[in-house]
């Protein structure tokens, strides 16, 4: 188990150790019911959602590119860059990520399908599906198995053994924010496996070739072809616009994704805790290992509904547009079994992550306090208008 010490968790308050096997099974069944209910309810309404979103993204993307042909005029530059950034974010987060998860496979539409989709980022969809859909979503937060815990270059959990190289992580962190798509693409190739010599060389050569082709196409499009379409005078300005749009997308997706598992509330697990786990225990690990971000509907859309990270990890192949509606059911299960429902506002979650990255660059560090069991907040009666009466104020009618 490279890079991780063996922890034996005997903490009796740890939810996974407190629950009885019967309870764990009940929880698993309860989650299964939520998933099944949505699955049988999927239909035209959902299909219309993803299709109209794809259409919107393509229109916005095309329009932004056209506006950027006039990028030497500052208003066009600002408008085009903003539009392109939003289009790229939508494409990566709500469209690409979720289609590659197979969330829309049920439509049986070969053009909106996990096996055929490719997205506007440096990662090839095949490599990404392996490292993300398989490794990360199966071994979520199991230190030593889920390579998304620190992405092999950072120490984000005290269970990871400290090494001197982590002293550089505050700087690496900033670079990773800016060049996130390239970091993810390289990460997909399993750097630790390459270093340890466990990676099949033939497979690595194939992956490198595919990555090279994909990267070449991406660079040609954003940094050569589209700038060239703006003519000699506009080349540089459009190049700057495209670089800016990619940077904005990178920083945004990095922020959302880091808030998914690295805030303080999220639990990590040892390999022995996750060994031979039941279906119910798998659900509980997903629930405890993820953290949501609170926000508006637009915020959820722009985050690809990864702000419902908890729901996403429980049901990775459920259409993301359904996470909001099942959230109350997930919370109800948390309340019934005294489990936490990890969530918080964006600023708070993001700052917690940054604090952890800075602190754990240095040796030591203790697990941060976890969230208490979820309790539904009391429903406040919003006080209505009052009128005065002889006995004091009384509710106004009507």
């Amino acid at each position, binding site marked *: 188990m490279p890079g991780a010490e063996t922890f034996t968790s005997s903490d009796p308050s740890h939810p996974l150790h407190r629950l009885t096997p019967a309870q764990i099974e009940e929880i698993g069944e309860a989650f299964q019911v939520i998933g099944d209910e949505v699955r049988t309810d999927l*239909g035209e309404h959902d299909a219309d959602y993803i299709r109209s979103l794809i259409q919107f993204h393509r229109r916005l993307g095309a329009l932004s590119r056209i506006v950027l042909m006039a990028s030497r005029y500052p208003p066009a530059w600002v408008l085009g860059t903003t539009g392109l950034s939003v289009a790229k974010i939508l494409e990566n987060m709500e469209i690409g990520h979720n289609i590659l998860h197979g969330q829309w496979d049920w439509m049986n539409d070969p053009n909106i399908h996990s096996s055929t989709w490719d997205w506007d980022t440096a990662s090839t969809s095949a490599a990404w599906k392996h490292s993300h859909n398989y490794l990360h979503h199966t071994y979520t937060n199991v230190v030593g198995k889920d390579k998304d815990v620190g992405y092999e270059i950072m120490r984000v959990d005290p269970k990871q053994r400290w090494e001197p190289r982590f002293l550089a992580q505050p700087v690496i962190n900033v670079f990773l924010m800016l060049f996130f798509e390239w970091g993810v693409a390289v990460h997909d190739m399993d750097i630790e496996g390459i270093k340890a010599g466990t990676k099949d060389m033939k497979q690595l050569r194939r992956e490198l070739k595919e990555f090279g082709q994909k990267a070449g196409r991406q660079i040609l499009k954003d940094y050569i072809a589209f700038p060239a379409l703006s003519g000699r005078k506009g080349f540089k300005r459009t190049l700057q616009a495209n670089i800016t749009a990619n940077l904005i997308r990178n920083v945004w997706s990095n922020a959302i994704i880091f808030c998914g598992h690295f805030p303080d509330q999220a639990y990590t697990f040892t390999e022995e805790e996750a060994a031979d786990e039941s279906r119910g225990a798998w659900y509980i690990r997903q629930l405890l290992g993820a953290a949501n971000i609170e926000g508006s509907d637009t915020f959820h859309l722009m985050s690809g509904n990864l702000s419902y990270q908890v729901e996403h990890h429980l049901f990775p192949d459920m259409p993301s547009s359904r996470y909001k509606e099942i959230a109350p059911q997930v919370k109800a299960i948390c309340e019934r079994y005294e489990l936490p429902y990890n969530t918080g506002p964006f600023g708070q979650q993001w700052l917690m992550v940054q604090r952890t990255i800075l602190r754990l660059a240095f040796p030591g560090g203790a697990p941060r306090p976890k969230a208490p069991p979820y309790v539904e907040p009391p429903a406040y009666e919003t006080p209505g208008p009052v009128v005065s009466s002889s006995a004091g104020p009384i509710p106004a009618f009507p």
Partner: protein
Amino acid sequence: MHAARAITTPLVPDDYLGLMNPAWSARELTGTIERIKPETEQASTVVVRPNFPWPGHRPGQYLRIGAELNGIRHWRAYSLTSDPDHPDGLVSITVKHVEAGLMSPWFTRKVEPGATVFLGEVEGEFRLPDRLPDRSLFISAGSGVTPIWSMLRDLERRGGLDDALHVHCAREPDQVIFGADLRRMNSTYEGYTFHEHHTGKLPRIVPQNLDEICPDWRDRHTFMSGPRELMDVMEAHWKAEADRDLLFTERFQPIIGRGDADVGSGGTVSFRVTDVEATCDVGVSILVGGEQAGALLPFGCRLGICHTCVGRLHSGQVRDVRTGELHGEQGQTVRTCVNAPEGHVEIEL
């Protein structure tokens, strides 16, 4: 086109053409429903105008046709009933209404002209030989008459209705699909005899009836299409009493395993790409069965989460080993790690 691809990557130019006008997209073969022509109370001919030059077909072959119902694309195979070289470029299938069905009620009761359908491959070995047989026997029952109809139309057009006997089973005379046309052909051509067997009045036809209806049945090229029970007994009869090579058949219903309905029957899998045949016991997934048979198959979580292992179903049905649900139809992708074959399954892996 290469230059256009450079700016549309990871999409293709077609994606943007389709954005402007769906008909400009050449990515998928589609057709527009021209009209629905009722044949009987229970069957209708669906006339489709392909949005591409029709490559032609052989009478007796079937078409894979897809439609989107409540957001989900479904595929079925129906015999083509149109003339292969229709002057208006139209093609048709004839669909019998199945109350509990999914696609057939949509075709017979719901769909309006103008709707879009997806057109898949034309397939099927059930067709007339290039050299027409001197004497032929056609046996059909119910909607099984549709490929036979195409063949008879072909014979009529080629002047080949010299000595053809057609035995057709239906419950009532007015339930005979293409009944009026077949009766017309019967009275027009010396060489075509249409023998109707109405099971509303008579018992079901058995092979022994053939000796009365068509005493020289052993010597004829026989083309048969109908429900499985009929085909099974007829085939056995040919094997026992005549030359099986002279019998040509078309089966419409997939052969589904007859095991315990709750746990499934297990079955066999043909991996069409890796060219491996596997056998799966009850509850054994396609993935495990394939690996045991030596196939190298894609896999990931093996829990039904990650969709790494999906393969496109070519034929047959599968049972989800987690829920016990029986599902699957042609063209659907299934996760091989959590689905076991139910009977014989062919998969594009």
